[in-house]
Each structure stands twice: as structure tokens, then as C-alpha cells.
């Protein structure tokens, strides 16, 4: 656990970057510091490994005052991923990753073996080992940065806007990768970003800072979206927070209703008889949705249903893993107004409506209020 007790940082020019911060970062989770520029989030992070020293107050890492020992020793025990990776341009990828083990005095062979292991863990091909950072893409460099921070297996990992310099697609895959790694490693991670969406996606807990180094709210991301502490947090969290908040509500209690279906090659006359002039969902042999059919548009008489000429469906609601956000999006994006619910294999199990989602939300809120 990392604990800030009344921590203040005042720079020589008088600017207060962090103002009497009290905060506990829980072990084994990702805690995100987020806020606009000048809010003290990066300063707070950098005080944990004494890159910046607090003016007053105490920071404890696993119960020990960080000011008690030698800063270099402290830093070797805390992984650090810096903006734009900050790799050593004159060292190969392998040697970059092996940095901290070498500083800790491991012999060269052991340090390099460990580095190779880490490269594999973060998904870098072994042939990258002998390359120099300038030969890698931004996304690859960032992976090297993560591998380097993890090399000596530190319990704590500090990540200082690590994904800010890569394009949105790569950023998203790096975020997913981090969540996958974290599920495996269970480090205590403090992550700084100015991007609230990144904070909400990655954080087990999110600390929102306001300019002047004041902690505005410290909460789980779902709670942040549902109950912002004040106008500043509300504004900072941004538009659509009600909709995004659905992403933190499980779809477990959501009723899955009926939907008219027809297999490719089925009889059009039979569909007309069953559905009248509504919509039917066309399935393939594995019951996966192919698209929607407006029955009124079928030619007269009887003919096999073709997979061509269907109205494209909306997003799918996976009943086993999706949240209410996925269910609502499936309903809203479906041409028939019925969201298609599928199981883990992608086979259709039924439908959901926007009304069902709103009722489920209301029921969940009632449950919370009662609790």
C-alpha cells in the first residue's frame, strides 16, 4: 500500500503543485491519477519514488517512509514507465530491459535471461532483442518501457502518462495489454493520465485532481460516473456519463426476450405467416445473426430466404460478458429496435429492448438506495 499523509509540494517559485494530499493507494490494483494540466497528478506520482521530494507531509510505501533511505535504492524497487518510453537510445532493447537487474548487481547472463522473459511477457518478438530503440515503432517502444519497469519484479509500478504519445488505436491495444498483464501480475500500479476515458477504463480506483493540487474525488470509476462529487468532477468526467456509467453495471439481471428468427434458406411464406409485417432475424447454420429482414419487403409467394439483401444488424449484446451499456447499445443500434443477445459462441439467444435496460437500471438503483 502507498499512503500520502498531508503531502504538500511547493516549488521554489511559490507554486503549490500538491496541496495537503491524503490518499491511500491500495495494493494489487490500478489507481489512476487524472486531472487537467497543473493539477499535480504527475508531481504526486513522482514524489512516490522521490524524483520530486515533498515539501511537507509523509509518503509511506508498504509502511516505510520513503524519505528514510537512499533514493537510488528506493527507485530500484519501484518500476517506472515514463512518457514516450524514455528508452536509452544507445542500448539494445535487451539491455534496456535488463537495466534494473544490472543495477541490482545480477550477473549479466541472469539479467539478460530475465530481460528475454520480460520481452516475451509484453509481446515483443525475440528478434527485437538486438535492435536499438530508434528501430521500433512508438507502440513497441512503449512495450519495452513496460518490460524494463517490470524487469526486477517490483511490487509497485509507476506509470507517468505512458500511452499519451501513441495513436488512439495503438493506445487502446496497449491499455488492453496492460489490463491483461495486471490480471496476471497483480502489481500495485499508480497510473497518471489526463484522459478521463483512459482513467475509467484502467482504474480500479480513480483520483480526480483539480488545478492547485487538490484531490477532488477518489472513487471507483462507476461511482465517479454515477455520483460526481461536485461540478468540477461532473464537467471533467464529461458528456454521456450516464451512458458510460452503464458500462459499470452488470447485465446479469436483464431479461432476455423472444425474437423472430429464420434460418438462411428457410421458407418466406412461413416467415410471413409467423411474423406478419414486422422484422425477422436471419441466422446461419450456427445460429449466428446475419442481418434483419423486413417481412413486408419479401416478394409475394414462397421462396427460400437469401443471406443477401438483409438490413445490417447493430452491435451484439453478449449475455455472458457485456454490461448494460452493451445491451443498450445493441437495442439502440438495431434497425428493429430489438438488441440481439448472443452467447459466448455468438449464437443468438434472444433479444433485449431499451426499456428492459432502463427498468434493470431502475431496479439496480432501488437496490443501492435500500442498501
Amino acid at each position, binding site marked *: 500500500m502507498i499512503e500520502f499523509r498531508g503531502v504538500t509540494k511547493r516549488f521554489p517559485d511559490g507554486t503549490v503543485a500538491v496541496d495537503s494530499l491524503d490518499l491511500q493507494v491500495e495494493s494489487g490494483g490500478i489507481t489512476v491519477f487524472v486531472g487537467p494540466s497543473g493539477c499535480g497528478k504527475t508531481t504526486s506520482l513522482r514524489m512516490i*519514488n522521490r*524524483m520530486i521530494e515533498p515539501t511537507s507531509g509523509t509518503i509511506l510505501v508498504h509502511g516505510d517512509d520513503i524519505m528514510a533511505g537512499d533514493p*537510488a*535504492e*528506493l*527507485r*530500484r524497487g519501484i518500476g*517506472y514507465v*515514463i*512518457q*514516450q518510453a*524514455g*528508452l*536509452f*537510445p*544507445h*542500448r539494445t532493447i535487451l539491455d534496456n530491459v535488463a*537495466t*534494473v537487474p544490472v*543495477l541490482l548487481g545480477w550477473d549479466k547472463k541472469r539479467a539478460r535471461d530475465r530481460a528475454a522473459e520480460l520481452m516475451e511477457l509484453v509481446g515483443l*518478438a525475440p528478434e527485437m532483442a538486438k*535492435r*536499438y530503440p*530508434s*528501430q*521500433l*515503432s512508438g*507502440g*513497441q517502444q512503449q512495450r519495452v518501457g513496460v518490460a*524494463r519497469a517490470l524487469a526486477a519484479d517490483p511490487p509497485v509500478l*509507476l506509470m507517468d502518462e505512458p500511452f499519451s504519445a501513441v495513436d488512439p488505436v495503438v493506445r487502446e491495444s496497449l491499455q488492453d495489454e496492460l489490463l491483461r498483464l495486471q490480471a496476471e501480475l497483480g502489481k500495485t500500479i499508480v497510473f497518471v493520465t489526463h484522459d478521463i476515458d483512459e482513467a475509467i477504463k484502467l482504474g480500479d480506483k480513480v483520483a480526480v485532481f483539480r488545478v492547485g493540487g487538490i484531490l477532488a474525488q477518489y472513487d471507483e470509476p462507476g461511482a465517479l460516473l454515477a455520483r460526481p462529487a461536485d461540478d468540477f468532477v461532473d464537467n471533467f468526467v464529461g458528456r454521456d456519463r450516464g451512458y458510460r456509467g452503464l458500462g459499470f453495471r452488470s447485465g446479469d439481471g436483464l431479461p432476455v426476450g423472444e425474437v423472430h428468427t429464420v434460418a438462411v434458406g428457410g421458407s418466406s411464406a412461413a416467415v410471413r405467416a409467423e411474423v406478419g409485417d414486422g422484422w425477422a432475424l436471419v441466422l446461419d447454420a450456427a445460429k449466428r445473426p446475419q442481418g434483419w429482414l423486413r417481412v413486408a419487403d419479401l416478394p409475394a409467394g414462397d421462396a427460400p430466404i437469401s443471406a443477401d439483401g438483409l438490413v445490417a444488424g447493430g452491435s451484439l449484446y453478449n449475455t455472458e460478458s457485456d454490461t448494460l451499456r452493451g445491451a443498450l447499445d445493441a437495442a439502440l443500434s438495431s434497425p428493429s429496435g430489438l438488441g440481439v443477445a448472443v452467447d459466448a459462441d455468438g449464437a443468438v439467444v434472444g433479444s433485449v429492448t431499451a426499456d428492459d435496460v432502463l427498468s434493470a437500471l431502475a431496479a439496480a438503483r432501488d437496490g443501492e438506495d435500500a442498501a
Partner: protein
Amino acid sequence: MIWAWIPRNGSLILGLLGEHLILSLVPVLVGLVLAVPLGWLASRSRVARAVLIPSAGVLYTVPSLVLFIVLPVILGTRILDPINVVVALAIYTVALLVRSVADALAAVPAMVVAAATAMGFRPTRRFVSVEFPLAVPVLIAGLRVATVSNISLVSVGAAIGVGGLGQLFTDGFDRSFPTEIITGIVLSMLLALVADALLVGLGRYATPWSRVGPRAGRTA
């Protein structure tokens, strides 16, 4: 041009070439050793930079002949002592390199230095294994200028009798013997070219990372 003069005086010429080499390269080494800590200081402290860089500039403007003559007074050496030339050229080298070293260190990306600190490098080790190696390319450029400049300046020492190949000029002038003068000029030019080429090679060897094209082996 009397070609036969050259082989007849082979050992004299080789001796002067060797002297020229020593008189120009020893100051480069001494100057480098002195310039690195001074340049480091200038890169770290605004005050040190404000003092060191202009003083280095002023030092470099002192004419070499003046230094050769004044130094014996300051150092208490004999006027014809080769040490005067070595010290004078070492001063020029320092004057040239302090700026190179300071600029080279200042050009090391702040993000890389911060990353090194955050990894747990202590300042000395960080300097030796991160900042200095990254400064090498700019430093080599400074060393090339200093070396070539020293090789040409040594000849001026001939005026006080210690000038390596420069003595072929003074002697050739005294005797109105162009062959000797041309031999001296050609050899000192060759020496400068070879030394420069060796430094370029050394720089390439010492900085394998700068030879890889940006994103050369990039696959994704």
C-alpha cells in the same frame, strides 16, 4: 621539386613527423580530459556556463605565437621546451571542447536522463553509462575540429624551434628550397586528413546505435 631530397632525408622527415604527431595529439588527450568535467559543470550550472563558455571563447582568440612566448614565463620553462607547445595546444583544445562537451550533454534528452534516475542510477554511474555515451557523437565532432586545428598549429611552434613538420617550412624558407617546404605542407595536410578519418571511424565504432537507420528493422 627535387624528389631525391626526400629519401635522402627520410629519417629526418620521419622524426619530424613523429614529433608533429606527439605535439598535436598529446594536447588533444590532455584537453579532452580537462574539458569533460568543465563541460559537465557548464551543462549543469547556469553560472558555470556563463563563466566558462565566454572565457573559453576568449582563450581561443589569443594568438598561438603569443602563447608560445608567454607560457615559459608563466610556467618557468625554457623558451625552447616542447612542453610550451603542448600546454598551449592543450589550452586551445580545452577552449574548443568545453563548449562541445557542454552542448553535447545538454542535447541528451531530458526524458532519457529522468528515466535513468527513476530506474535507480546514481549520478556518477548515470553520467558514465547514459549521459556521456549519448554525448559522444557531438563530442567527436568537437574532437575532429580540435585535432585538425592542433595539427596545423604545431607548425607555428617552428618559430620557437619546436614545430614538428613546421621546421621543414622555416628551414626551407631560410634556404630558399621549395622541395622541403612542399614536403612539410603535404605531410602535415596528410596527417590532418588521416587523423580526421580515424576519428570519424572511432566515432562510428563507438556509437553503433547511431548507424541504424530510423525505424530500419521496423515490422509493426
